[in-house]
């Protein structure tokens, strides 16, 4: 498989460990990741809040780049995924809007043709690579690990609402279980992490994150696993802030799904990657060691 690799803004800036794991897995599973030269920000919901036309045009520019490469887009981030997927759908379906956007894009010498598809990492593994192939690649399964999967809103809901599919969350659950871990049920699994309000209203964001963490803790999870860098950031760093703010400690390690899969495939995390987690993940590593 070959994809136009859309990194977005947050991952290169803050979470190189995520990107690293994805690249390791990709080469192991024979996925080719082609850089998207000159791609801009996906235009997440904060930009959507400012202006509709600007959002569509910016996102469409990225889609056009992938179209010119003749490849489908692979994203690692829920927000990028939502923004690009929605834009792709709107522009494919609505000719009037497409014409307007193309008028803007003409200035930078591009035209949206509707020839690319948008995939997020977990969906790509599930749909294109196949669960079987992923399972076969597992060398050191996480047997007995109780995982609270945080699918993230922008992975599941837009997809469910606009495309009548409810597979996205289920796909992630199945992938997590492929690593030998158990994806447990917990209250407010579908709920938001609070991340979107970061920078707008931090206190509310923390309250929301807290509701989520309460559910996870009650269900007795060993750790949280997510594909979204925003959820990761909010739930990982958020725990420290909640500790300061509410004097409440959860001590729930948060892992990128790519990290979980990578370890299960037998590729150890490097020291700098372990240290990138604000909530120590040594607990998880120890579980692994003792096996």
């Amino acid at each position, binding site marked *: 498989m070959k994809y136009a690799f859309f*990194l977005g*803004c*947050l991952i*290169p*800036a*803050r979470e*190189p460990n995520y*990107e*690293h794991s994805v*690249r390791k897995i990709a080469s192991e599973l024979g996925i080719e990741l082609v*850089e*998207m*030269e*000159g*791609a*801009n*920000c996906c*235009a*997440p*919901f*904060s*930009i*959507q*809040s*400012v*202006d*509709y*036309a*600007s959002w569509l*045009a*910016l996102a469409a*520019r990225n889609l056009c780049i992938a179209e010119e490469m003749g490849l489908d887009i692979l994203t690692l981030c829920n927000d990028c995924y939502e923004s690009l997927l929605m834009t792709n759908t709107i522009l494919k379906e609505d000719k009037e*809007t497409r014409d307007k956007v193309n008028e*803007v*894009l003409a*200035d*930078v010498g591009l035209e949206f043709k509707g020839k690319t598809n948008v995939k997020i990492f977990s969906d790509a593994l599930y749909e294109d690579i196949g669960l079987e192939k992923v399972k076969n690649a597992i060398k050191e399964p996480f047997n007995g690990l109780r995982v609270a999967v945080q699918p993230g*809103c*922008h992975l599941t*809901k*837009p997809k*469910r*609402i606009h495309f009548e599919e409810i597979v996205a969350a289920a796909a992630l659950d199945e992938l997590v279980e492929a690593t030998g871990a158990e994806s447990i049920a917990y209250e*407010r699994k*579908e*709920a*938001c992490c*609070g991340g*979107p*309000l*970061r*920078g*707008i*209203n931090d206190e*509310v964001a923390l*309250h*929301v994150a807290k*509701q989520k963490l309460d559910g996870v803790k009650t269900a007795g999870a060993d750790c949280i696993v997510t594909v979204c860098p925003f959820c990761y950031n909010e739930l990982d760093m958020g725990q420290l802030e909640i500790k300061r703010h509410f004097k409440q400690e959860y001590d729930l390690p948060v892992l990128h799904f790519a990290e979980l899969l990578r370890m299960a495939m037998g590729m150890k995390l*490097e020291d*700098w990657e372990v240290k990138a987690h604000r909530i120590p993940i040594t607990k998880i590593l120890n579980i692994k060691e003792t096996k």
Partner: protein
Amino acid sequence: MITILNTEKVNLLVAHEITNGDSDLSALDAYFMHEVANMPRGRGVLACIQCGRCTSSCLVARVVEEHNPRKLMETIILGLRSDVLRGQLPWHCLSCFTCLDRCPQGGDVGEAMFAIRNLAVREGNIPNGIVVQAQSLFETGRVVTPSRMALVNRKKYGLGKEPTVDVEAVKKILRKTSFDKLIYRGS
């Protein structure tokens, strides 16, 4: 936890709560619903049957009393334009789409929130956090820019070359859509 009041009390509550509140009723704008409904993504406001499921489901509404998506829709139908566009009301939403997922009318409350925000921004109502991201986007093509340290580390960890962005193209697009006018108005 609340204790359920008996019917009489609840009814009395209504009777006593007839007030004008702080709202400026002279500014009642009958065409506000029309205005929102005809914004891109704004159609959802017409779907609303005022059932309250969105607010009951909303995580923010449980924390922030004034955030109430159902009431926001109602306020729009009533035509309290300035209440909606001038205040904090549009900016508590997480865009988590829970309401969108649950609204029985398939009414895009969460979507309509973008239409309302777009209108609010045109009125100059835009939170700082978003201005920072938007200006960063205009200037660098990214909402979050990697620090020098991050780029150094990138090399160290063997993550390949630094991702590029065509800032000029981004600026061209955003000027064409007048995005810059919206985000640099305040400064």
